[in-house]
């Protein structure tokens, strides 16, 4: 499993956290997703054989929570 922690500046409330966890967590190959409201940090683990970071990042953009560079 690979893991990455990114900052998502768009997080502004508890709903955002839930949305990210649900949406990203629902992608094929993605394991645990942990988002935090105050620090705006999201930790995502995924199975590199089934998906890759680019796909995850793309999806985060689609749901309007793109990670900061």
């Amino acid at each position, binding site marked *: 499993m690979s893991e990455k922690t990114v900052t998502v500046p768009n*997080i*502004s409330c508890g*709903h955002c956290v839930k*949305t990210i966890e649900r949406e990203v967590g629902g992608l094929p190959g993605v394991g645990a997703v942990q988002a935090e409201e105050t620090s705006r940090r999201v930790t995502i683990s995924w199975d590199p054989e089934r998906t890759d970071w680019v796909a995850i990042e793309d999806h985060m953009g689609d*749901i309007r929570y793109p990670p900061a560079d």
Partner: protein
Amino acid sequence: MSREMDVPVTGMTCANCVATVERTLQRVDGVQEASVNFATERARVSFDGDDHVRDELLDRLEHAVEEAGYGLIRPRGEDDGDGDAEADARAAEIAHQRRAFLVGAALAGPLFLLSMARDFGLVGAWAHAPWVNGLMFALATPVQFYVGWDYYVGAWKALRNGAANMDVLVALGSSVAYGYSVVVMVALWMGSSAAGDHVYFETAALIITLIKLGKLLEVRAKGDASRAIRELMDLRPETARVVRDGEIHEVELREVEAGDELLVRPGERVPVDGEVVEGRSAVDESMLTGESLPVEKGPGDEVVGATLNQDGALRMRATRVGRDTALSNIVRLVQEAQGSKAPIQALADRVAAVFVPVVLVVAAGTFLTWWLVVGAGFTPALIRLVAVLVIACPCALGLATPTAVMVGTGKGAELGILFRSSEALERAHELDVIVLDKTGTLTRGEPAVEEIVVAEGAVVGTDPGGDAGAPDRTRELLRLTGAAERRSEHPLARAVLAEAEDRGLDLPEPEDFQAVPGRGVLATVEGRKVVVGSRRLLEGEGVDPSGMDHRVEELESGGRTVLWVATDGRVAGLFALADALKEESAEAVASLRERGLRVVMLTGDNQATAQAVASRVGIEEVRAEVLPDQKAEAVQAFQEEGAVVAMVGDGINDGPALARADVGMALGTGADVAMEAADVTLMQGDLRTVPRALRLSEETLRTIRQNLFWAFAYNAVLIPVAAGALYPVESAPEMLRSLHPILAALAMAFSSVSVVGNSLRLRRREL
């Protein structure tokens, strides 16, 4: 064909939420398009199909939105579903209680008659046949578990919190009576009378039914909290005229966005908060400030949604829409305040909290004494225990509060005092602080002429240059001004007309008349050109007003408004107008202070004006320059000091404070919103009814206390009998040595009659 519907969505806290909900809705099967407005908290969904399709779609939408962590409120039918959920819930509660009571009465009534007839030997021997117990069981069982279900639920909740309330007493007492009766009935069928030979089904059923009646009376008396909100919402116009690309479009209010340019015609309500771009008019902002005098608005001035534009057309730019407007703010404050009000624990519950544990201890003691000390055996000891519990449960308990409250509110209504909740009636006697709004409450809320100044050398008399006396010159000035103002609807004009009428003046018809929006009027009266209005209006008409400025300053310093009058191009005089005190204010304040209440005046007005009014009515404590949304906070501040606070007000702007106060009292002469937000309405708008309302509360409370005494007294007296205290006294009648069921029946009847009779006495009490 594509259709659209509007669905309220709850729980959105930020702009991202809007995107999330939109995406969620768009993904739902059958949705063609979905857009969400954050400000109005509504989603607009387009779809294709009939009502049946819509209902199914709503199911899916509701599911999806909830999954995403938000809420969706289903619109009812075609209505856009502003959600009268609260009113619906209340109606359902009343219907539920009524149904339960009717079922209880239909079954308990015959049961009671049958049982009484049997106990007192009024019917034949057939009544003692075993099947009669079966019939009683059949009548009592639905009452016990259908009608009485709420008590089990309530008792369970109370016990879980470690408290004993009325529900516990009712559930316990009735269950013991019922359960014991079942045991006796079955034992008798099996030929054993070891458990006793008398059933108490009617006791259980009657207790539950009578207390249910009390509950029904109570929920019916409860005020409808959501009405205040509805009244507020109704202040908003439904549509607005938006200028887009130079064209005027009439759009629904929720489609207005910040930055839109809007047109407001004379007589219309301002749709949203904004800033005047063009035009000039007077706007009635009494909704916000309570002040009846319209405020002059021109380019750059702020206007507030739902205030009433009076005489000129305005072009404005929307700055705040939807939930950000001042009106929405008031709505929110009222909602919060209504939700924050802690329910006071009913007196009956407080009594029960002491009574229940005592009864339990006595019952347990009785059982242990008979079983272990006296050695009477387990079963006889158990029968004693049951007797204590059954006799302790007072039927009349449920009637004690509601009957007194009913008679109290009825008497209040005769006096013009409408109590909307029994809590308010119970609470009004224990007030510490009473907060009075100034405008419209202590004062009349409309301007009246206080002083008329005739300019030196002014030509007012019919005899120019003549030496008419000062009173005549004043009358002549009033006559000319009144004539010029005859056609005007402005509150200041009406005040001048009222003054002229008071002095019995005959006003001539003006020959021509022109109202200048926000400034005054121009008219020709008996051939003379009369200008009445602001200093600016006079200047605009070429009149030099500077000679009177020193007087104006003096007149305005007392919080008065000055109206200028010019005739034939020269200043003729000044009218000083102010919000006049109500005659009864001082008397009412004195009477409240006599009761030991801390009387406080609350107003948005400046300190000087407020102080002037306060000293005239005898109030020492003044909170001036309080913004409308701070009124509720001021009330809360007193509450945080531990005081029980009443608020008396009349305006829409008083709504949140009225809802926040422990007892909100609205004057019947004021805004509907105020009355809906308040607990008490004083119909005549007379402040002197406030002390009477407090006395009524006191008397009602006293009656409730007496009722509770009577409800418990007969039963409590019989508890020692039930416990077997008289058993050793061999000379005592058998009926007292072992509690006879007739005694329980008599206690029940006497306490109910005493309670109802005592409540009715309240009617004749002097206030």
